């Protein structure tokens, strides 16, 4: 059986700069990384592979050729194959079209029982890829935003948090699962494996033409207007003095504001 993990390359949210004067996000000099929730998804998939070596894990990404870097990282982590969907049409595609082309690639792979991805991309993500893919794959069930993912008896099960309650949610395969970040640290690749991933391993590049899908056929349904920045908060009041004095002043002030 095959598991496909969809990975996005994003700007590291911690390295982008926000320019208040220009009301814009400055991405120059920002680092590009594997979207962290996708890393957790990949990690969970590789755990399944460790438990059952007959499972083949395939990393899949989409976009400009430079996205290859995250796929090489996925190879270094232990994926069997890495596929990049890349051509001029794919780069221009929007969400509904993206789901179509990714689904076409997954269908071509055959025997894919589980598609995993992060619960959302931390840059401009909407968290809708999983459910959209499920429709394009032929109405597969979706486990949305789960952790503690398990594969047993042809079912995929995960812990789901919904409306302030926890549920164990389970669906028969084939299915789509979007994964939350959990406290367990995901693994990072060994240096030698990274070198290997660039020297020996191969990232397959597929085009939309080869898949027989035109991802730009669907019209762009929204237009971007502008960026809006949240208002800057007023600088706070620093309570001075020794710890005892500061504590007394603070409690008095909080009481005056009726918050305690």
């Amino acid at each position: 059986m095959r598991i496909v993990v969809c990975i996005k390359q994003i700007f590291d949210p911690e390295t982008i700069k926000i320019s208040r004067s220009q009301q814009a996000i400055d991405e120059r000099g920002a680092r590009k990384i594997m979207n962290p929730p996708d890393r957790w998804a990949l990690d969970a998939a590789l755990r399944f592979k460790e438990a059952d070596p007959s499972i083949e894990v395939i990393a899949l990404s989409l976009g400009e050729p430079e996205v290859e870097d995250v796929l090489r990282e996925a190879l270094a982590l232990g994926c069997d194959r890495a596929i990049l969907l890349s051509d001029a049409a794919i780069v221009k595609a929007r969400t509904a079209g993206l789901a179509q082309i990714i689904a076409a690639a997954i269908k071509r792979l055959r025997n894919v029982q589980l598609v995993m991805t992060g619960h959302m991309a931390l840059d401009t993500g909407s968290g809708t890829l999983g459910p959209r893919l499920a429709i394009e794959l032929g109405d597969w069930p979706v486990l949305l935003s789960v952790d503690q993912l398990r594969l047993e008896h042809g079912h995929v099960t995960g812990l789901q948090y919904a409306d302030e309650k926890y549920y164990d949610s389970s669906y028969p395969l084939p299915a789509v699962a979007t994964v939350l970040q959990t406290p367990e640290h995901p693994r990072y690749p060994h240096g030698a494996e990274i070198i290997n991933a660039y020297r020996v391993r191969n990232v397959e590049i597929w085009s939309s033409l080869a898949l027989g899908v035109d991802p730009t056929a669907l019209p762009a349904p929204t237009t971007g207007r502008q960026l809006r920045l949240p208002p800057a908060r007023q600088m706070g009041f620093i309570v001075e003095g020794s710890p005892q004095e500061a504590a007394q002043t603070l409690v008095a002030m909080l009481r005056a504001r009726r918050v305690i």
Partner: protein
Amino acid sequence: MDLSFLEQLLGASAEEEEGYRNIWVVAIAWEPHLRPCDLQVIGKARNLADSLGAYVNVLLVGDNASEDLARELIAYGADAAFWGAGYPTGRSLRDFFEKHKPEILLFADAAGGRKMAPRLAQRLKCALVTHAADLSINAEERSLVVAAPIYHGAAYRVVECKANPQIATIQAGIFPTPEYDSWRSGDVEEVELVWKPQPPLTPVEPPEYYIPLQKADIIIAGGRGLRGSGWQLIEELAAALARRLPHKAIALAGSRGAYDEGWIGPQQMVDLTGHTVAPALYVAVGIRGTFQHFGATEKARCIVAINHNPDAPIFKHADYGIVGEVEEVIPALIEVLDS
């Protein structure tokens, strides 16, 4: 003579000729009562509909959907309520909306809508704006203008929908819950959709120490700055506050850093990748402050920061700050609270 302005007054626009009209909201009744997040969406839909000259129709589904709950939806601002007890299949939901042709279709960004909205959008091959934090109408185009967070709330991207139906999911807690007006009247109708068996959900015990952060009046949050005995200190601080204010719900939480250290679970993480909170008082201890953290605490009424580093960004975000070692400041605070 150009009479287009008159036509506009009469509400005859291109979209209406195609048959797309009215604002629809999908509400879900898992429990035998309505969810506040759905009511907030209905309240906002009411505003938008009034500026468009459209009706607000609500489709109520879920195990506990009933005629009584549908009548309540009218009292909260809907013009017509359609209900059916069960979970509709994706196909029947698509057929329902292809028949009714909503101009705008809104969901709460909560369980149910999060999965239903993108699946429906893909079936209809149309756009979807998720996590909307602000909505307005461009009256000339009759289009929905939505602000949605990017980079976890560091900024908001404003997009305008171009094709009907215009679908969005709306964040909970952004818009007020509308007033209940028992004098409002409207049509209530039971609908026949194709129902599917209930999703296989088994409730499990929530992890220990769990108070839903969204319900807490006071949140004490710790960050990486709490080394060694620091975590125990903030637990004691929470206990001291609980002794002083027995009627308040006090919750312990942490930053992304505390979560990475394994001190808290995901349900306690205050961060835009975790939970967004709006307590009356938020005490950040040993949290340096990232914009993901600020985004998640923006709605707190009062923020107190305690950190040893006077240059920590959190002080720019807090209402009150104390610069000092956690091991000294917290015991002093506990002493004052207990006296």
